[in-house]
């Protein structure tokens, strides 16, 4: 082994890795330019976040992580994880499964063989619901098949049926998920060190209990705890009747699968998953500049974020904590993740209004 100064080798590598950011800062907050890049942070957001980071490092200097991030060690299947819990009132309205089913029965397109043109012809001839089509000579078998699915009483089968017929971005699929018991919904959002092949730093989970949103965040205080937190999160997801996420089908779930493989853990992909991103995109794509969760919140829910941390900058905040030991940068990561979870619950409530009342 040659005696090349190994510290120099390591520091050059770190420099190269740090320079290799996975987002683009868009100058002058130019919306038009932002549309050309996959992951962007506007320069105003970037500036605010960097200033916040500096403030936090000063504010939390000398403060221990236990003080900064209140939580408790909780036992999981493969060891302890540090869980930060919080709670707040859930927004209305409650799910209306009967109304949702009625709406589904009125969508003739759920019948195999009915396309847009046939649908409008059928409507003109007075067919208002799938039930009417059981008298239609040609469509009767398909209509009966659709009714069998809708009448099955099995929320999973109904959701699968709607997803197959109308796609996962269609309001029908959203309506079908209303049939799942809300107590079994698990809202889910990961914060990670990057887009891929790096540790998860926070597993955010929210459930609805007695009219409140109960948030449970498994914080990876050190990568040594990732495996334990991962096992706890996989167990929580495995118990879910319905998993709710924003972009989870293409990001969070594959990311979990990859991390499970990294540690050689078995895992089962949750069977039922409501990803809100494709639905939001279908409904509001034309109204919003992009479909990031915070944009949807501002444009649809009328809520401005109180935290100043863009998702894409989470890795550099965690890295600042990791390298300095100063817990300050963790504070906005937890707040950001909690806001994401709560926003998803609110977004579901809003989608109910939209889907039921047009």
């Amino acid at each position, binding site marked *: 082994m*040659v*005696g090349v100064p190994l510290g120099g080798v390591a520091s050059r590598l*770190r420099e190269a890795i740090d320079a290799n950011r996975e987002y683009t800062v868009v100058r002058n907050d130019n919306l038009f330019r932002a549309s050309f890049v996959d992951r962007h942070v506007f320069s105003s957001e970037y500036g605010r976040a960097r200033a916040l980071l500096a403030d936090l490092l000063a504010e939390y200097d000398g403060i221990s992580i236990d003080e900064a991030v209140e939580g408790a060690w909780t036992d999981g299947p493969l060891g302890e994880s540090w869980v930060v819990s919080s709670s707040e009132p859930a927004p209305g309205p409650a799910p209306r499964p009967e109304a949702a089913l009625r709406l589904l029965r009125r969508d003739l397109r759920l019948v195999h063989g009915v396309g847009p043109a046939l649908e409008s012809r059928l409507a003109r001839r007075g067919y208002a619901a799938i039930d009417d089509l059981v008298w239609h000579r040609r469509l009767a078998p398909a209509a009966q098949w659709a009714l069998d699915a809708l009448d099955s009483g099995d929320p999973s089968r109904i959701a699968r049926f709607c997803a197959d017929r109308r796609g996962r971005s269609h309001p029908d699929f959203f309506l079908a998920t209303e049939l799942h018991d809300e107590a079994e919904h698990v809202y889910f959002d990961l914060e990670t060190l990057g887009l891929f*092949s790096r*540790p998860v730093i926070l597993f955010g989970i929210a459930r609805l209990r007695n009219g409140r949103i109960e948030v449970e965040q498994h914080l990876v205080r050190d990568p040594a705890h990732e495996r334990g937190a991962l096992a706890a999160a996989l167990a929580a997801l495995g118990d879910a009747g319905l998993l709710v996420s924003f972009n989870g089908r293409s990001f969070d779930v594959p990311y979990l699968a990859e991390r499970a493989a990294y540690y050689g853990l078995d895992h089962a992909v949750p069977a039922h998953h409501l990803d809100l991103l494709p639905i939001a995109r279908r409904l509001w794509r034309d109204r919003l500049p992009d479909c990031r969760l915070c944009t949807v919140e501002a444009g649809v829910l009328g809520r401005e974020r109180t935290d100043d941390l863009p998702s894409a900058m989470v890795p550099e905040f965690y890295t600042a904590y990791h390298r300095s030991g100063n817990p300050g940068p963790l504070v906005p990561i937890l707040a950001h993740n909690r806001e994401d979870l709560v926003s998803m619950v609110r977004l579901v409530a809003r989608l109910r209004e939209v889907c039921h009342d047009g």
Partner: protein
Amino acid sequence: MTAEDAATAIAQDAQAACIAHIERMPGRAAEYAIPSRPLPEPLAGWLAREGIRLYTHQVRALDTVREGRDLVLTTPTASGKTLAFTLPVLEALVRNPAATALYLYPTKALANDQLRVLLSAEAATCLSIAPAVYDGDTPASRRPGIRQRSRIVLSNPYELHQVLPWHAKWHRFLAGLQVVVVDEAHRYRGVFGANIALLLRRFQRVCRHHGGNPVFVLSTATLANPEEFAATLTGRSAVLIGESGAPQGSREFVLYNPSAAGARSTLTDAKRLFVDCVDRGLQTLCFAPSRKSAELIGAWAREGLADPDLVATYRAGYLAEERRGIERGLKEGRLRGVVTTNALELGIDVGGLDAVVIAGYPGSVSATWQQAGRAGRTGGPSLAVLVANEGPLDQYYMRHPAAFFGRPHEHACLDPSNPAVLAGHLLCAAAELPLTDADQALFGEGLAALLGPLRDHHLLRATPYGHVYCGPGRAVAAVDLAGGAEDRFTVVADGHLLETLDRDHAYREAHSGAVLLHQAETYRVTAMDLAARECTAEAIEVDYQTAPLFSTAITPGTPDEEHRHGAFTVRTGEVTVVQEFGGYRIRRYGETVAVIPLDLPPLSFETTGCWWTFPPGLPAALTAAGLDPAGALHGAEHALIACLPIHLLCDRADLGGFSTLQFSSPGANGDGCPAICVYDGATGGAGLARTAAALLPEVAATARALVADCPCEDGCPSCIYSPKCGNDNQPLDKAGAVAVLDELLRLSATH
């Protein structure tokens, strides 16, 4: 007209002085063999239908893979290598329906060629293999299907590097992996080779995790050290299969030296020989050293022929359709001659040709044979002509044909322990699976030494499950397989990226004022921003070249290895190289017309070197003999480096040299003595200097012959002048260089 007649005719036509040598190689009959156990029916039936009988080396390859042992195949071009490694792969796939195989090629084009071969084998054997290329060009929509269904995947190292972090998606493929074929493995040498060696170790680790335990089959050009090379590249020992059982037609090999008849040009003579061959009815391929020279020879040849449509030019950069057309033309015999760059050197099958003309030594004996091997594929007689350049290697082989036709001398070197390369791959490995103590067996001692610094820089974290990667960016993006990832300079012209260079090359070739050649266009560098690592250039027509002036100082570290050759000791170890760039020369038609000062900070890097000292009385003895001691040492250093590519597969630019009359090596032996040092140009070392230390007496003997046999009086570009010399080839003393090399040889022969 047969090749033999053509060779005789050419010898008569040409100026006799130019024929340095004609080697007449008799043909050889095929040697067949039968596998120890019969092949399964689909394969045996396929071979029988095609009328294929297996050669001895193909059967040995089959039997070796059946025993579960790695192998390295070094049989010549056109000896049926592809079948030799494909047959055991297909057999494994027949015997086990879950079995899979990976073929790695250095380029996309080669993988695509091989795909055609495998598709036709699949059709002919009715096996269900679904072979597919998986590389940067594979559309996203096809990727999941290939991962789920293909049983043979063809790819390249760059793609493998990107794919490894996604190994969970490849579980089926990796769990069933039986054979990994690494074709053209000799290309994986130097820093590139070290990167590939570590990539292959990462790959083995991931395979093991998924339950796969494949055999590695390497195919390489002829080397002096095939087994050692294979062992370094894969970290496993391999069985050598070098004896070919394929038939070989008789071959005439002409070494042709234009400079022996005064000032003549390699290209014009190559063109004349090419036209002669085509005129005599031989289907001929002419290899040119660059795109531009290929176009020139092609254009001249068309002028010189009665029917210009008989010849065509072929090079990389042509559209696939044009290239296919030329390949078809050759196969069908419509085209009688093709001029090509080395784009055609590799596996692309154009059928048997009668003659090959090579304009300029291609840099290695194995590359020359690969080009010459394009003639006589069908076992008929063939002719090959190597037309020499002025360069030292060309001239050496012209004067020493036995070295060319004798046993192989070229060692392929790589050094996977180079920490500058290893560190990045450790990060990648830790991002793929936690890095544990068990991985030391794969990555070597460097693993333990690097964990600490990588932890200190917060790129790795120790956990109970092993070291976990936790840098904020992708680890694979921090590793450039071609080498020198972190410290690269970009050259930008008119807003677009021209090329990227490592710091060393940027200082020498892209300082402000430098004239830069890029794809035959000239550019002048207008600014060099060291902080941003960016050089700005403008396209400009100039009639001059530039060459940097720099001085080199070497500080050797503690030697970690000693090679004793008789009374002579060569030490290897870390060296710190510091180069001061004082300015650059402007050269017009080989004459220095101006020297312009440069303001650059010194360039400093650590690498591996080997060095040795001479007895302190040497300078006095040289002076007494009327020789210049400094020029003598300097000349010997240049000659040794010029000759290293005869013994190592490398370019002389991959090495640096240093000579001094007063060696300063604190604490080490030989302080104050005359000394020569040879070092790897790549940071951390590429394994060249280390191998050179072991081979020094052989290299010195070659260098002595090169210099002593050169007809020049005071040294020339064919012997002791170096195109990269930072001192403008001053001082040099040719007779002195011979005396120094004689002294080296005398000492190493003394016991």
